[in-house]
């Protein structure tokens, strides 16, 4: 399994984080730290592209849930894009597909973020 790699880019309407590799016990904390970096810049509209994520355990799910909760508290949103079938099965098994907005295409996520009205970004924490 590959180590977790996270690439972050910024659009006018959202922060896009692309995850590749494995969100496993050896990488615990990395995703939390990257998300915290995003939040500390005041960005609460976050798209996480899972199309190259091979594996996640409940540790990775926990990071995503904390991020979801944080975005919601700040009137933002978090959208997940195109998980691989094995990863999607983890979402279905835990019923987290009921919590997260999961879309097939990045364009759909960007459109949803454009429709989300949020207050001007303010750094926090």
């Amino acid at each position: 399994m590959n180590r977790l790699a996270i690439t972050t880019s910024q659009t006018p309407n959202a922060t896009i984080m692309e995850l590749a590799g494995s969100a496993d016990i050896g990488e615990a904390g990395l995703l939390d730290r990257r998300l915290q970096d995003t939040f500390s810049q005041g960005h609460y509209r976050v798209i996480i592209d899972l199309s190259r994520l091979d594996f996640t355990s409940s540790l990775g799910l926990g990071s995503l849930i904390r991020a979801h909760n944080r975005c919601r508290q700040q009137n933002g949103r978090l959208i997940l894009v195109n998980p691989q079938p094995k990863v999607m099965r983890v979402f279905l098994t835990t019923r987290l597909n009921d919590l997260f907005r999961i879309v097939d295409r990045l364009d759909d996520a960007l459109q949803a973020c454009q429709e989300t009205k949020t207050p001007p970004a303010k750094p926090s924490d």
Partner: protein
Amino acid sequence: MIMNGASFQTVQINSDFHLAKEVEDQIISAAQTSGYDEDVIFALRLSVEEALSNAIRHGNAYDVKKKVHVRYSVSPDRIDVYVSDEGRGFDPGGVPDPTAPENLENPSGRGIMLMRAYMNQVEFNDAGNEVHLVKLNQAS
């Protein structure tokens, strides 16, 4: 170590996620060498990781001086993994259903249900500080 005719490997680590990852990789490598398919490997990896994570976080409360004990056996027809910690144990029946709507936003509490979903057998000892995972080779 020989138990019930199967040869078991025994590993003991301090409560550290990176050490846990090494043990997980060791078990996965043994399963891959034995020819288990990708779906079994994913299920095994997920379940072993949940067991190790629970032992470190909940059992040993991140106390690096406390050990996590692992013994495993990979044979052509089944994989057995035992993970125990040095904590007080717990009642697995007392864990709230993480799929209930009121619990979906809780960032933790999904380990046991994932193990049960992906393994053929998940059993805890009476003390609640050891879990036994079984994955059968249903292709054999």
